[in-house]
């Protein structure tokens, strides 16, 4: 057993890539921590978390072809459920995040049942309606959610309540959930469900004729994706220490998740990691250059990125990267 675990040659290329991705994030984080560059560690926390969210989105669009513009609803719902359970009943967010993710998955189910059979753009649009309903309800049901002013977590939480004083530990925690999701996705790709999803995405009619009931699989993919997105929301809420509808539930958040995924490459295992790395770096450079006075103008970056990727790099950066690496390998 032990020899097998250490033998890199017995890993297949995807397993190897996951391990490389871990080190690509971990080594710089360690280095930045040692030289005390906390801001860079903070950026890497965001990279890991956004990669997590991008990959969660990828499960429904990349694997099942279900295009969602409303993932902020799942993100915000997970965060709100966990935070409310914690504030009112003292339930630790470690368990709360599973319940929050569960609520997000249920929302996916409720929205999916009536709308997922819709073809083309209709489903994508109904996800926007869903996100708006959730946002307006959170604003309106202020006796539980405190409306626009949001909920504040108490100071001095312990790691048992999912809070770390050191940014580096936050990085390790987000990296851990990212790796867990990557392993889950890897298993999913190889599972019967994953193969059914792939067959369905290639040719829905042919898959249906083989007994793959597309609606069921699409809803399952949406629920899985919603579950993980909800967990991501809990992590972000715990990291910030407070939640408010105007940054947990807004369309901009759905946009960011989507950009990370398409930038890296949809339907790939590590696309979201590559996409997130590039996205977070670009965003912080952009904010550094134009920040402050030009509030919200980072949307210029988001819009330009989306258009450029869709027009010139529709398959995403990660597959390109793989091709380049393969070419270098074949030469040496």
């Amino acid at each position, binding site marked *: 057993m032990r020899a097998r675990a250490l033998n890199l040659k017995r890993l297949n290329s995807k397993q190897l890539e996951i391990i490389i991705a871990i080190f690509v994030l971990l080594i710089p984080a360690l280095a930045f921590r040692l030289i005390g560059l906390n801001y860079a560690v903070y950026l890497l926390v965001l990279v890991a978390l956004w990669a997590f969210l991008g990959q969660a989105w990828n499960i429904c669009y990349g694997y099942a072809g279900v295009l969602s513009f409303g993932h902020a609803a799942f993100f915000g719902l997970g965060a709100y459920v966990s935070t409310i359970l914690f504030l009112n009943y003292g339930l630790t967010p470690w368990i709360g995040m599973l319940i929050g993710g569960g609520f997000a998955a249920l929302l996916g189910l409720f929205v999916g049942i009536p709308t997922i*059979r819709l073809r083309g753009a209709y489903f994508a*649009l109904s996800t926007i*309606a869903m996100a708006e309903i959730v946002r307006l309800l959170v604003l*309106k049901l202020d006796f539980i959610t405190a409306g626009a002013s949001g909920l504040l977590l108490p100071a001095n939480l312990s790691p048992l309540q999912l809070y770390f004083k050191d940014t580096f530990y936050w990085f390790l925690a987000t990296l851990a959930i990212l790796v867990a999701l990557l392993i889950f996705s890897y298993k999913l790709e190889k599972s019967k469900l994953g193969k059914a999803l792939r067959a369905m995405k290639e040719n829905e009619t042919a898959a249906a004729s083989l007994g793959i009931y597309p609606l069921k699989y699409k809803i399952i993919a949406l629920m899985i994706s919603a579950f993980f997105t909800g967990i991501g929301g809990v992590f972000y809420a715990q990291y910030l220490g407070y939640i408010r509808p105007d940054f947990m539930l807004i369309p901009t958040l759905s946009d960011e998740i*989507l950009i990370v995924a398409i930038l890296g490459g949809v339907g790939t295992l590590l696309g979201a990691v590559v996409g997130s790395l590039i996205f977070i770096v670009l965003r912080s450079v952009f904010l550094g250059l134009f920040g402050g006075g030009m*509030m919200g103008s980072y949307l210029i970056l988001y819009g330009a990125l*989306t258009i450029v990727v869709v*027009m010139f790099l*529709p398959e995403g950066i990660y597959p390109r990267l793989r091709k380049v690496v393969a070419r270098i390998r074949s030469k040496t």
Partner: protein
Amino acid sequence: MTAIEVLGQVLVFGVVLGGEYALAALGMGIAWGLMHVVNFAHGEWIMITMYTTLWLSLIFRIDPYLLIPINILIGLAIGFLSQRFVFAPMSKRGGGWQQTILATFGLSMLMTGLAQALWGQTIYTLPNPYVGTYLRIGFISIPEAHMFGFVISLVTILGIYFFLKKTLIGKAILGTSEVMGDEEAAKLMGIKTSNIKVLALGLSGAAAGIAGTVISTFYYINPGVGITWAALAFVIVILGGLGSFSGLFVSGMIIGVLEAVGNMLLGQAYGLVLVYAVFLFVLYVRPKGLKGRA
């Protein structure tokens, strides 16, 4: 006021508002129903012309409604350019509907960001002579801005309808459209379909320009308003059914009445929740809309 008077007031206001909503959705209906471009940036096209109405009417001190021709030209230009340089190259590369949606989505973010960079987050309202003045018919009173908006909306929708049905260019657009015509057949008849698509998106932009002028007289102006109007337009276009002008007008009014009644019964902002909930319900029971052909 008696309950009946209140109800009558709310219903009439809902219908008038709904007429304006139909105008906001008209451009999207043209782009989507005729050219299969699901345009997320439609709300931003409206937003841009709301700003041009604001600045031009403040600088030159002219009535906002007189700016309609200028806003039509601005809308036309935006529509032309978007189709020529973004949407057309995309469909040439063989991108499916997802790619087109994502591109219009990117365009929407880009335009919102540019508006924020240029004009900041300030919320403007357009000072105009039609605010606070009412038309009274019996016990019902309607703000003048909305009444004019309703009339302009009716004229625009009828105008575009007859333009498409009666003129040669309009017939070419309908012939090229995927819902009512056949692009291949249109090509064989000697119609240059790529130019026709540019024209159709221009028409969609022009409708957005008129809508922007009308909306700016009663709604606040801010870089973020696009999404509100795009979401409403999506609901109305789907509810009305792709490619149907009468469906568009009727569904606009249904949405207007729903929002007005919802706001009255459930309190402000719940009206929109009701609208979205009904929208999801309609998608479930009648995914092709009231009069859909797609």
